């Protein structure tokens, strides 16, 4: 019986892979990609086939029920839809990837920022260093969905800031998905030249009705570069949003990220960071407010591969209704990575019986000379805090709302962070109102 079930499962996974490959072939026919992009797509689909469709038993997807994705009948997104309803009246000021395609209508404008270069992916791939980097990345990919995302790339954008320069304003990139059931695969590459400083804001919009956005975002930080990154993830109801981040940090570089779950649906945020140069610093702060059946899943791997590197992770999650959150985070300190420092902190507020929070902090250390701390808490609102607020005349509901907002805001207070955090706070407040209603 048991072997029967396994057989059945395996064959269903194989079917899904076959179905996906068919979809891929159809996509190729339609988009007829440039040779450099085609090479990347091909490498990616074969990597995906090798890895197979990740069922729930897969350790990378322990907390996500991928069956629904397996069952969904996706169609391909059309080419850039000029009628796409992209929110925000300042769209012309930033880069828009709608259904994975770079908008021809809204050329990037950033004041007089001559030091920031924005290039459409097919053109950028003519640079073989970039192409080979992406190829190497997909050939070593262990995450099947990230490989799948790369297979479906038909466009993307490369943002580069020149060495020894500072951007005058944050680069805003909107990843827009039309309503489902479409599958879209945006690609973003950000390269920060030596000793440059750049801010990147990525916002997900649209989605819904079983849309599936499966994005890959690469950050490459040269020596001494500082990159601040703000992500606002989550599409509409019933949407899937997977983002795989690949971060490579060289000597004395600083990467600081703030990730917020501000939409709805099911999201997966995966971050693979490699600190390959001495004295690199990585920080990640994440804040999620889950309502209804929202799900936010985090999968983080930070590899300390050089001396004297630091990494810091803080997760603040609030779960209401039947929301679910999972944080699976590993810090791996390699052999030569002496004097490493790392912090992994996960705080969950579980406000309902039906909600669920899973935390899996891991630490693998191959070097004695390190300072690593991790802690995780899951609990309800602090009654003493509620009592204190009430003793000042503030009613219970307002007290609780303020406490939840405060809890989430802890991850949004980042010293010297140059991306605008106020819109995120406003979005969280708006969602809080929804939670109350």
């Amino acid at each position: 019986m048991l072997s029967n079930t396994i057989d059945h499962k395996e064959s269903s996974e194989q079917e899904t892979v076959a179905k996906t490959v068919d979809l891929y072939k159809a996509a190729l026919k339609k988009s007829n990609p440039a040779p450099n992009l085609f090479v990347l797509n091909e490498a990616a689909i074969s990597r995906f086939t090798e890895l197979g469709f990740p069922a729930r038993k897969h350790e990378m997807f322990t907390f996500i029920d991928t069956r629904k994705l397996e069952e969904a009948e996706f169609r391909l997104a059309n080419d850039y839809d000029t009628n796409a309803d992209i929110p925000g009246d300042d769209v012309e000021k930033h880069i828009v990837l709608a259904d994975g395609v770079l908008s021809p209508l809204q050329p990037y404008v950033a004041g007089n920022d001559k030091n920031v270069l924005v290039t459409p992916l097919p053109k950028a791939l003519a640079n073989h260093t970039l192409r080979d980097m992406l190829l190497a990345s997909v050939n070593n990919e262990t995450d099947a969905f990230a490989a799948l995302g790369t297979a479906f790339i038909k466009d993307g954008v490369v943002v580069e800031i020149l060495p020894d320069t500072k951007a005058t304003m944050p680069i805003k990139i909107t990843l827009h998905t039309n309503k489902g059931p479409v599958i879209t695969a945006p690609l973003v590459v950000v390269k920060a030249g030596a000793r440059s400083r750049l801010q990147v804001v990525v916002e997900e919009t649209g989605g819904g009705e079983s849309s599936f956005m499966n994005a890959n975002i690469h950050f490459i930080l040269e020596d001494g570069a500082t990159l601040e990154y703000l992500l606002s993830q989550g599409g509409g109801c019933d949407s899937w949003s997977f983002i795989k981040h690949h971060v490579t940090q060289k000597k004395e570089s600083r990467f600081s990220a703030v990730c917020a779950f501000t939409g709805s649906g099911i999201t997966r945020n995966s971050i693979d960071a490699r600190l390959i140069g001495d004295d690199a610093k990585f920080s990640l702060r994440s804040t999620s407010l889950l309502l209804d059946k929202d799900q936010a899943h985090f999968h983080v791997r930070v590899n300390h591969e050089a001396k004297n590197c630091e990494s810091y992770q803080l997760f603040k999650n609030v779960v209401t209704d039947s929301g679910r959150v999972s944080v699976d985070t590993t810090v791996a300190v390699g052999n030569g990575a002496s004097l490493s420092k790392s912090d992994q902190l996960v705080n969950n507020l579980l406000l309902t019986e039906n909600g669920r929070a899973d935390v899996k902090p891991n630490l693998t250390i191959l070097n004695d000379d390190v300072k690593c701390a991790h802690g995780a808490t899951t609990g309800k609102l602090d009654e003493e805090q509620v009592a204190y607020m009430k003793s000042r005349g503030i009613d219970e509901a307002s007290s609780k709302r303020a406490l939840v907002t405060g809890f989430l805001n802890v991850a949004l207070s980042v010293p010297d962070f140059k991306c605008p955090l106020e819109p995120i706070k406003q979005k969280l407040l708006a969602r809080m109102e929804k939670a109350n209603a």
Partner: protein
Amino acid sequence: MLKIKNLKAAINGKEIIKGISLTVNSGETHSIMGPNGSGKSTLSKVLAGDPSCEILGGSVTFNGVNLFDLEPEERALAGLFLAYQYPVEIPGLSNREFLRMAYNAKLSNEGAEEVDPIDFDEILNEKMQTLGMGEKFRERSVNAGFSGGEKKKNEILQMAILQPALSILDEIDSGLDIDALRVVADGVNKLKNDKNALIVITHYQRLLDYIKPDFVHVLSEGKIVASGTSELAKRLEARGYNDIAVLV
């Protein structure tokens, strides 16, 4: 204003307050002294409506209303204020936002219009200046990482903003340096008038040099064992609590 009659209360099933009677009228300042663990903070928490306290007997009226009929937030809106011995930290909630919420709760309870952040900042700035509190205490999270003395100042800042009818100050002097003690006491004195009242809980005569009590009570093992004028506090300072019998 406040009439406590034979009040008995417990924490975690253990009787701590064992029959206290006390009347506080408008315009009066009362001081409560007493050894560690005698029940001073518990008494103040019972009055504020802290959920950890269980009422076993007796009655308390506040301006003629049965205090136990009011929720903690209703007590605050009715004009009762407790400056906590150990103020609670609230990471992530800015002090300014917290204070504005409290101020607006009071305004809307009085039927007045709430103030926006900009108008409130003016009110806040003025109060902070009189208490010698730096700018940073506006943006910082409520009490989070504040030093002991800073937390106490922040309690008095709340009192200054809410202007309550009855303020209970639980060891507001502990943790304050000499200068801060004077500033805080001055702030409290400025707020004092013949329409409001104060209960000052302290271990030290020093505070009472600044905030002059009309009455001093000694609490021991959940009961008031001696009451008198400020003379009583001076004798306590000289002789300690060992021979309370002598005091009575």
